[in-house]
């Protein structure tokens, strides 16, 4: 295929990605160094309240946004350098908190709080998803052929459901005296409030995420299990290998590329953890990096969006994405080099 045909085929897609992914990235990078604010002017304002004999009048300096001829607020965009990053990271306070060793203070700064949760969430759910996925795949593979179809259907449900709705459905099971909370209370014989402290909410979020992603892992591992070499399994039995040894020395090495694939996808996706925060409305206790950007972008009561902070926060989030991707990209690059 010559270059012109190739360009004609790929062109529209590349154009869309450039316009809607690459260009916004550049503009976010630029925005993070600028701040757009209304221009304020200071005016003297006299307010009078009726009083006995004479009015009481107070003159005070009020700063108000300047309006143009159409009555709209005039804004100006200013280069502020790293100020937005400083606002997000609060390096002085964070540094003081770290040198004092006080986690409490550090977690009052949104960014560090969000980073802490995003990383723990990603790292804890990863082995759980791979483990549960493998377990379910082996179970499905063990079941009779006739029930595999329906079982896969049921297994797909948590994966296919709208994430926010999935979180809400878990939420409704536990909220207040939801039936599962009531069951746990009856079992442990004590009062439980799952939404009153951060760690229980985090636990529920991880529970939801494993429920949501394990089917995906299971389907992929199940497909991999179909291609395990039956002969080598059989010779392992004849050599006296136990079930566990067969799993460890034959099945898992065979599935290794798939395990790496699932792990990669899961790392990318759970680093973007967001829907859990919305569905559990846990912003008072637990927040994530992507939620923080979302929050900066949502208009506040005065209708202002803090775009530059959001941009700075996004750029900081990107650092994590880059670190995440270095390893697989290096591998693909080496494969590509080797392939030619």
């Amino acid at each position, binding site marked *: 295929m010559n270059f012109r045909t190739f360009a*004609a085929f*790929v062109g529209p*897609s*590349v154009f869309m990605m450039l316009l*809607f*992914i690459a*260009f*916004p*990235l550049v*503009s*976010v990078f630029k925005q993070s160094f600028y701040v757009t604010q209304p221009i304020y002017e200071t005016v003297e304002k006299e307010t009078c309240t009726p009083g006995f004999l004479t009015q009481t009048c107070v003159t005070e300096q009020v700063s108000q946004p300047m309006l143009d001829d159409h009555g709209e607020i005039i804004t100006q965009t200013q280069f502020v350098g790293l100020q937005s990053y400083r606002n997000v990271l609060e390096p002085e306070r964070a540094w003081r908190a770290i040198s004092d060793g006080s986690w409490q203070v550090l977690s009052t700064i949104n960014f560090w709080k969000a980073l802490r949760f995003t990383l723990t969430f990603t790292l804890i759910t990863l082995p759980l998803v791979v483990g549960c996925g493998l377990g379910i795949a082996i179970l499905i593979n*063990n*079941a009779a052929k006739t029930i595999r179809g329906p079982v896969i*259907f*049921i*297994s*797909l*449900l*948590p994966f*296919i*459901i*709208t*994430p*926010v*709705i999935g979180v*809400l*459905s878990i939420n*409704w*099971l536990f909220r*207040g*005296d*939801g*039936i599962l909370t009531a*069951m746990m209370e009856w079992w442990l014989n004590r009062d439980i409030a799952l939404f009153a402290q951060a760690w229980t909410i985090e636990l529920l979020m991880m529970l939801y995420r494993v429920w949501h992603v394990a089917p*995906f892992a299971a389907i*992929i591992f199940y497909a991999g299990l179909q291609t395990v070499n*039956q002969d080598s399994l059989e010779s392992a*039995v*004849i050599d006296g290998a136990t079930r566990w040894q067969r799993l460890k020395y034959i099945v898992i090495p065979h599935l290794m590329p*798939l395990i*790496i694939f*699932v792990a990669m996808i899961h790392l990318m996706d759970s*680093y*973007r953890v*967001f*829907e859990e925060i919305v569905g559990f*409305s846990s912003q008072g206790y637990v927040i994530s990096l*992507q939620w923080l*950007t979302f929050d900066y*972008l949502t208009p506040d009561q005065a209708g202002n*969006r803090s*775009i530059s902070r*959001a941009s700075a926060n*996004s750029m900081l*989030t990107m650092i994590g*994405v880059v670190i995440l991707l270095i390893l*697989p*990209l290096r591998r*693909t*690059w080496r494969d590509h080099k080797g392939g030619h």
Partner: protein
Amino acid sequence: MSSRALRQPFSLRLTSNIFLALWCLIAAFPIFWIVVMSFKSPVDAFDSNALNVIFGPATLGGGKGLSLLDIILGIAVIWVTIVIATKNLPSMVKSYSRPGQEWFGWVIGALVVLVGFLVAFFVILPAILNVLNPWFGPLGRDVLGLTTEHYKTVWIDRGFSNNFKNSLIVTTGVVTVSLTVGTLAGYGLARSGSTLAFWILIVALVFRALPHSVLVAGYLPVFINSAEWLAPILGENAPTLYGKPFAVIAVLVAINQPFTIWMLRSFFQNIPAELDEAARVDGCSHFQAFRRVIMPVMWPGVITTGLFSFLLAYNDFLVTALLLDAQNQTMVPAIVGMFNRETTTTDQVVAVAAAVSITAPLIFLVLIFQRQIVSGLTAGAVKG
């Protein structure tokens, strides 16, 4: 095929099946439960006793319920529908539709079955039962509390149908555009071994990992001010892109593009290159080869990729919540809004009903396209 050496003892098979059943329970339970909750009065729906939620005494007390006879006949109607749809429909479609136009026969057939079911279930059945129930004594007495009023509230009073329409616009747009653009690109990438193609795929992989909020941070200021910077090109009636469905469609298509081209590329790689080479030898250009030889055989891959594009657009919360205004809002942000705003339990149950309404189409989707979804998941993975 499994040899005697690999046969498992009975105890192991039993344990394995018990755990499998447990997993199915965990997988289905939350979804099953919101369906049950959505049909109960608020008192029942949030009762801490599970049996009360299922049988709904308070709902029953309100005069809304089903008798044993209702339940039996209702299940019978559903059963007959399933039998017709799975056994009789395929053969009838085959015999009546013209060859080559089976899909049209399927659309008509599915519509007929659907309408027939709706009429039988919601019009004929209640009319018959109204007459029959008093005759059957204890069998005809209400035992199971059940009410559909929350669905009425959601769809009629809360204007959820408007959100549904918006979701429909956005998802249709995303699926069509992203498949058109993605199929071409996927084919080009699969048939070209150049370094440029490799780099495009790598960059797409990097884009796949980006948090969507990062991109939205880039769009927002541009979209809100678009009337200003578009004015020199489009003149007076330059649109404000913020809040417009077509802008969101473009954004979601772009976000979806990396995934789409990776997936379609792996499907196209499975179509032997000899096929289009033969067409080229016969004198077709690349585009003719694509249109006459590849297009007829590419549909399984396209349908699978389309399903995943649909899911992305249908399930999206972040982009639609930030880029659409209240009037053009889609379903997911609308439900989150209901859930966050409402404090009384009645309103919560209304949100539950909305959540079930949005989940039902997805369940049908899995039911119909299970094989395509599974093959899509594994196609991406096996290629790695």
